[in-house]
């Protein structure tokens, strides 16, 4: 089994598309199967991050709103 790793990305206080740009920068350093947990305050991420994941072949595992924050967990794809 390869060493899948978990990473957190704090995008609180950033407006879209900056959270997406941060996710893009982080994803470049990761390998397929790695997990990213992104937390943001801009509701725009609920639309943009899943769209960005679909475009790049990453899988959104969960996305939810909690206490005025938005949490999205996605898995890096092979693309």
């Amino acid at each position, binding site marked *: 089994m390869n060493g899948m790793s978990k990473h957190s990305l704090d995008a609180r206080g950033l407006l*879209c598309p900056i959270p997406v740009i941060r996710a893009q920068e982080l994803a470049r350093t990761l390998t397929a199967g790695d997990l990213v947990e992104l937390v943001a305050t801009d*509701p725009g991420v609920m*639309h943009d991050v899943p769209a960005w994941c679909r475009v790049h072949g990453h899988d959104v595992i969960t996305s939810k709103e909690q206490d005025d924050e938005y949490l999205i967990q996605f898995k890096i794809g092979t693309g």
Partner: protein
Amino acid sequence: MTPNAKRKAVALISGGLDSMLAAKVIMEQGIDVHGVNFFTGFCVEGHTSAIRERHKIKPKRNNALWCAEQLGIPLHIIDISNEYKDIVLNPKHGYGQHLNPCLDCKIFMVNQASASAYAADHGFDFVVTGEVIGQRPKSQRREAMPVIARESGAGDRLLRPLCALNLEPTLPEREGWVDRARLFGFHGRDRKPQIELAKHFGFEDFAQPAGGCCFLTDKYYSAKFADLLRARGKRDYELDDIMLLKVGRHMRPTDRFKLIIGRDQGENKYLLGYQKRFLNLRMVSHEGPLTLIDGAPNDQDIELAMRIVARYSQGRNADQVEMKVTWPDRQERLVRVVPLTPTEIPDEWHV
């Protein structure tokens, strides 16, 4: 590379219809197209609609990502907000109708698409844009086309599929990587050919108008931006400055300070994120906006600011309202003030 190997192109994707069509036209010719989009800090995107409550029903999508998804291509977003300062503050080719430095901007973006580290990693053979001759008075006039190609360094590796037939054949056409006969000769401001082509490709719900990619083409935004530069007395800004110009009611009673007053809950919530960095005012006795004060106000200025804000609160007709002033060092003070009357707020204060 063998003549039959798949050629690669990078397409500038603004989020508008034209760039999406241009990419599609080239994809249809079997070229491997990747999208690139630029974040300048002035972009009109999802976050702007996300801030204001009244836009709640509108989809908060990022149009560039949406286009990439429709096209089925990867999209790389490049943050050029830092480098962009020099372009917007010192455009070699000047401004368009407002503070939009479109020609310099296009040159920079085509350069980034063709010569950045990202481009080097991918080895693109050419660059695709959705420009149409005559569509925009300055940056898309005929004489601007060779200037963009030359000054961006892309030269004849810059292909504009929507108006290629009105221009000299570029390298991808001459080499037969793309078939010139399957490119277009659109020109002018008529959008019908683009709409027809969108229909042909089955694109629906695309963003219109094509020119709406950034706030710098907006008269009101440009006025606020010009005011910021003038009041600061220097041609410089931070990313937060230009983001804040997208939000709130901006009022400048003197050159020493400006008020940024939230206009609804969405804006108040957004401004909350900046409260630790600015002197701010909050209503205590009545419902009302959160206000940031930008600049260096003296005590009289702060009192005036409070009286203005009271005018935009539920206590506007009260004899007095109570407000909390918080300084960036977290010092706080409760103050009672008399709201200004509408006639005491001159129009010139509105930026």
